[in-house]
């Protein structure tokens, strides 16, 4: 019969229409600003810089090695190195970025900066409501706007952050053990050696745990 196929199709539509009132399966739309779907943990949008502790400037993990700047596919990262040094999470003196800008209007959220970073300093944020009315520089984030605490990182990517923390703790423990071993060796050497001037000289690095 001509029109049978159309009627069958319309029956499907009617089933879906009626079903949307009773079944969650068929009612799939979400009224966005009032209602929100939870983001999956892996979800990523734009990068941010992680800092430990409470002071963002002191705790910034970034050491301005500029690997992410080089590897970034659309080249949206700009870094300037500092002249002086500050201690990092192991206590080792490192340079830090005096300028760290990411132009997120250029960034394509590819996560390559995160993958290449050897210091776990840059991670992906999942905040997506970033619209601004400032055309010029409104989306150019500097290091203060990019800096987010480690607690925030734990909040948005709990599993990943726990892994990173474990890795950093292991590294720190390793560095401490190494520094301790070096200090012990130096002390043993100093005890063995009769010269009076040496102990004070070799004891110095072990205080700041900066010998690697």
């Amino acid at each position, binding site marked *: 019969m*001509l*029109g*049978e*196929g*159309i009627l*069958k*199709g319309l029956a*499907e*539509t009617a089933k*879906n229409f009626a079903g949307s009132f009773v079944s969650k399966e068929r009612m*799939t739309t979400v009224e966005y600003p009032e209602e929100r779907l939870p983001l*999956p*943990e*892996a*979800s*990523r949008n734009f990068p941010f810089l992680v800092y430990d502790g409470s002071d963002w400037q002191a705790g910034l993990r970034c050491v301005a090695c500029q*690997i992410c700047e080089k*590897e*970034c*596919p659309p080249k949206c990262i700009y870094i300037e190195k500092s002249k002086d040094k500050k201690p990092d999470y192991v206590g080792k003196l490192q340079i830090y970025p005096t300028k760290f800008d990411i132009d997120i209007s250029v960034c*394509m*959220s*590819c*996560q*390559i900066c995160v*993958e*290449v970073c050897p210091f776990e300093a840059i991670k*992906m944020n999942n905040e997506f409501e970033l619209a601004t009315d400032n055309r010029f520089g409104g989306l150019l984030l500097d290091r203060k706007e990019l800096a987010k605490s480690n607690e925030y990182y734990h909040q948005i990517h709990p599993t990943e952050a726990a892994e990173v923390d474990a890795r950093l703790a292991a590294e720190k423990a390793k560095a401490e053990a190494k520094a301790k071993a070096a200090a012990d060796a130096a002390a043993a050497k100093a005890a063995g050696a009769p010269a009076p001037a040496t102990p004070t000289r070799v004891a110095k690095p072990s205080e700041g745990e900066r010998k690697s």
Partner: protein
Amino acid sequence: MNSLDVKTERVEGWNRPPVIETDGEGELLEVAMGPHHPSTHGVFRMDLALDGERVVRLKPVFGYLHRNHEQIAETVSYLAMMPYTDRLDYICSLTNNWAYALAVEKLVGQEVPERAEYLRVILAELTRAQNHASTIGFLLQEMGASGTPLMYAFREREKILDLFESLTGSRMMCNYMRFGGCRVDASPAWLDAARKVVAALPAFVDEFERFLSGNEIVMARCQGVGILRPDLAVNAGVTGPMLRASGVNYDIRKVDHYGIYDRFRFRVPLGDHGDIYDRYMVRVLEIRESIGILEQALKDIPNGPVMDPKAKIRGFRPKPGEAYGRIEAPKGELGFYLISDGTPNPYRYRVRPPSLINLTVLEDMCLGSNVADVVLIFGSVDIVLGEVDR
């Protein structure tokens, strides 16, 4: 390639649709259809010459979305090119990733762990299912069934994109595959979620078919329209569902057995007439075959690493040489040709885009048909302008 089995008995001569002779009264009407026409899937222009309602000449004009893709590759490292490949055919970024990773792996002779191969197959087949679903939805939208079929298709696509997001972090720009494996491992919870989505897919395809396949309007609009002869399809280098709808049995999953496709049992759906309806049916059947592959892959997926520990992420410098990696992307043969000169950047990077090459037969399919059918024929080619223009 002995499986290239052209059914010659249906071919009568060259069979190019005849150019309509005008009777000399009146003039041809030239119409520029696009670039901002809602049916052109982006920015594509067709310069039509019309005799009344019938198409006498069709000149495709593209390049509005040109982004210098191949030249960019020569300035960035191999790894940094991976997210750019997401943006070629942005409906199915994971297959683009795979084709590029395959080319680089061929270039350096990189092995891929077992679990990563399975994950790649699972993601590629999910991509195929969602691409075909949305293609059919768009086709029906262009036919005038505005909204409903597209919404049903997108409802399914959404479930698959949610899977992509929870695994790769992004719904469309996945950037997931790496040279020598995949970036992150899939958790057991993700695999369970994928099994659930795959288990729900056959019901969706059944519903879609009840909804559309027997519909008289769909048949009247699609059957016998936009016929592509198999000899022309082979000569023009058309691949993918377009070629198979013309009855040519050529599927790179069966020909190359790239990845681990030789382990799965699946059939290659073929059309008889090469018209729009056959292309629609081939896509529906391919979703069904993809579901079969997905079920097998999700059942057999082994444990193990997803990344070769010897694979390098940074400081990747292949030895001088060249490689061509190709896969059966949802739209056809997607190939990447790479020449390395030993530096961190490719010396030459070339994409063989299925969308562009399938588009070359557009005029032959459209000549002699009505303007309203041009929209349908164009929709049945299934292109993404990001890949056509690059």
